[in-house]
């Protein structure tokens, strides 16, 4: 066990943990931050994704010691209910999930993609998501949401009230 400093969603914490323990179990168990979810424990699906210094990381395999002193952001830290991140707004507008268990991976990976490339092509978008699973099959609306978010971030398409999707 070791004292490990963690910066999560702008707050400083010190946890007493096995340095080899994956970050996921520390975030969930010690800090009671529920957003990253256990999907596979094998870095195969992305349900456990968090941002570490701005990059999507699979917290189910990342030893907590390697996240020490880095800036960790969970979905909850991306925006707030009062001020959602534009990507969250876009995903809500497009009603982009079924069960939503996988969504940490998609939203945080989309965030990283649009940070480095606000004009992703369809191929670039699919390639960015190649390592993610959505078992319900919500991909069509996820892609719609990413396109909408890209437009919002570029400023070419504000989040307009859709008048709730005239039938």
């Amino acid at each position, binding site marked *: 066990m070791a004292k490990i400093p963690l910066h999560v969603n702008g707050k400083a914490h010190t946890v007493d943990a096995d340095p080899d323990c994956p970050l996921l179990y520390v975030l969930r168990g010690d800090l009671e931050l529920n957003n990253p979810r*256990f999907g596979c*424990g094998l870095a*195969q699906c992305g349900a456990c994704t968090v941002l570490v210094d701005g990059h999507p990381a699979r917290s189910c395999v990342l030893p907590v010691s390697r996240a020490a002193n880095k800036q960790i952001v969970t979905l909850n830290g991306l925006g707030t209910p009062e001020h959602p991140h534009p990507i969250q707004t876009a995903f809500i507008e497009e009603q982009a999930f079924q069960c939503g268990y996988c969504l940490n991976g998609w939203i945080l990976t989309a965030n990283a993609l649009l940070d480095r490339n606000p004009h992703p092509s369809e191929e670039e978008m699919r390639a960015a998501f190649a390592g993610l699973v959505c*078992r319900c*099959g919500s991909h069509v*609306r996820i892609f719609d949401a990413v396109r909408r978010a890209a437009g919002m971030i570029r400023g070419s398409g504000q989040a307009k009230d859709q008048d*709730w999707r005239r039938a």
Partner: protein
Amino acid sequence: MLATSRRGFFGVVVGFSIADSAIAPRAAADTVKPPASDRLDSWIRIGRDGGVTVFTDKVDIGMGLQTALSQIVAEELDVSPRRVSFVLGDTAMTPDQGGVGGSTSISNGARPLRNAAATARALLLQLAAERLGAPAGELTVADGVVIGGGKSVSYGELVRDHELNGALRVSGRGFNVNVEGQGKPKDPSQYKVVGKPLPRAELAAKILGTAEYSTDVRVPGMLHGRVMRPPAAGAKIESVDDSAAKKIPGFVRTVVKGNFAGVVAENEWAAIRAAKAVNITWSKPAAELPADVFAHLRATAPKASRPGLSRGDANALASAARKIEASYEWPFQAHATMGPGCAVADVRAGGVTTVWCGSQKNHALQKGIADLLRVPPDRVRCIWMPDAGSYGRAGYEDAAADAVVLSQETGKPVRVQWMRADMTAWGSKGPAAVIDLAAGFDAAGNVSAFRFESRCFSGSEVLYVADAAGNFLAARLMGLPNTSAGTEFCNFGDCCPVYEFPNLQSVAHVVPGLDDPASPLAATHLRDPNGPQGTFAMESFIDEMAAAAGSDPVEFRLKYTKDPRARAVITAAAERAGWKPRKSPGGDAGAVSRGRGMAYAVRGGTYVATVAEVEVNRRTGAVRVTRMVCAHDCGLIVNPDGLRGVVCANLIQSMGRALKEEVLFDRERVTSVDWNTYRVARAGDVPEHVELVLLNHPELPPGGAGEPSSRPTAAAIGNAIFDAVGVRLRRVPMNAERVKAALARA
């Protein structure tokens, strides 16, 4: 802490807190009586703030059901749907409606809610008539405010001094439970809220990261459990050495009962390490899994056979001028939910137990857990929480039983989270099937005879109703018999469309299961039990028949289809896809050939037709679906936007089942253990174009949409592959290796 998913945005129930009652410690004498179905306030309550709380067993497993139900209730009460909040799937608080399943939650499950809401409105109008001094018949309601006699009063004000309750007449059981009171539901022609698109009530919180799932339940003193399943099907525990586990900080204990093994620790990481550290010596099982599941299905004597829909001359096939035959194969497929099974159980003295999990059928689970603990069901309370999707009897029930066993043994609340392989390899499976079809034509080329014969594992080897102990994997590993296993056929008609052939014969067989005593290949319901299997066969073979007759596949279907709703979806999908009549195959001979295929399905009064367009790489065999067009008729549409989301997701999930999903196993064990060895649709597989045509029928009752659009996809893709390259794929998944092999044989 548990409240967010159990309350809507505005509805606050005055007088009790759902969250507190859900986690409050219970005394040993506590029993839990289910709410009386014949009382209005068991179903619906109005708060003093005008909020409406609905109590229902119809849990929302990620398809927006709660939102559609809010529209149905709001419609009857003349309130905004956003005033309606829900208590879902809590055996202490919600009447038993059989849980959810079979795409029946709108068609059947909404009925008692609609009637209860109509009765609540009638009672409120009586109160308002007295208060306002105007006849009830002359009152109008706008968002919960009753107006009449030049005055107005809100629902919230009306219930301040009056208890809103009354007797209801109860009929039916399970999914068919209904209640009726003095209020008569509106005529659908008056609907203002039902039929309008509405964002899902629970989805924003998920996206904002504030929603809670069953995986997030924490109760005071809770420990963490992991299970250790046998390395081979049928292996038995010979010895256990947990000396290494005992050195792990936080380790609590190992639990072994029969061939059930688990560990409990103070934190999750310690539980994971301990599960690996416990050294179990397992026996080498005597029996082997079949080398080839389809050969096994064909060669094994059925345990039951049932003649199905048949008509006309049984000898017509023998006397046909021309005959074609084909055999179709569907493998075991896995639920493989995004999050492996997870549950929290708190077993206290006297078997007083609380379970939190994502099971679709919590009242059944209550009975099953009680049977496992050998206590009366009223000692057990099961509380539903959202989980990682659910496509049938997903395995949350088994995780709940694991948690119950570990909690009972340790005397502490225990949270069990399965590892990925526990779900993919050891979760019960959608049944494998073989379906043999034959058709005869007369001299003029018309269909004169048809025969359907299916062989499958029973889809209820692990019954979808988990109301007996032996239903749980933990119990079967402990040596309890699976007393509730049922015999479920892949029936002609139930599982595929029926065409108007003059002479037809059908029979279905069920082959004994591999569930002795606790097989990783035990079959259960996985999104539309036997529907994708039967429809893949029928809807592929109808194209084979069309090709044999030299006909266009859409025209051929219409020639033998009278049902106007079936004709309407087939026609609508073809029109939207720009379908030009011609026979298949029609692809070019280039390195990548393009093709189009159609299939249709009926399930429980819902009609679906799907056109798939594909590109087939002749060198590699790789199939890419470039476009899917789906026409969908589920009667009256409640929430068109929610429906679009559900159907779009079904199309992609079922495309993955058609092209990629197959549970692999050797003679000892399932070798599909993770996302690399059990492949599902990924971002790169998604068609560029997915187009829906929703056919609304306000004159019909609302039907189901959770499963029907899963049915036709595989056949639509298989037919498109045939159209592209002229080879017929008769086994799912239609992966590159199989397509390449079929091309080499051609």
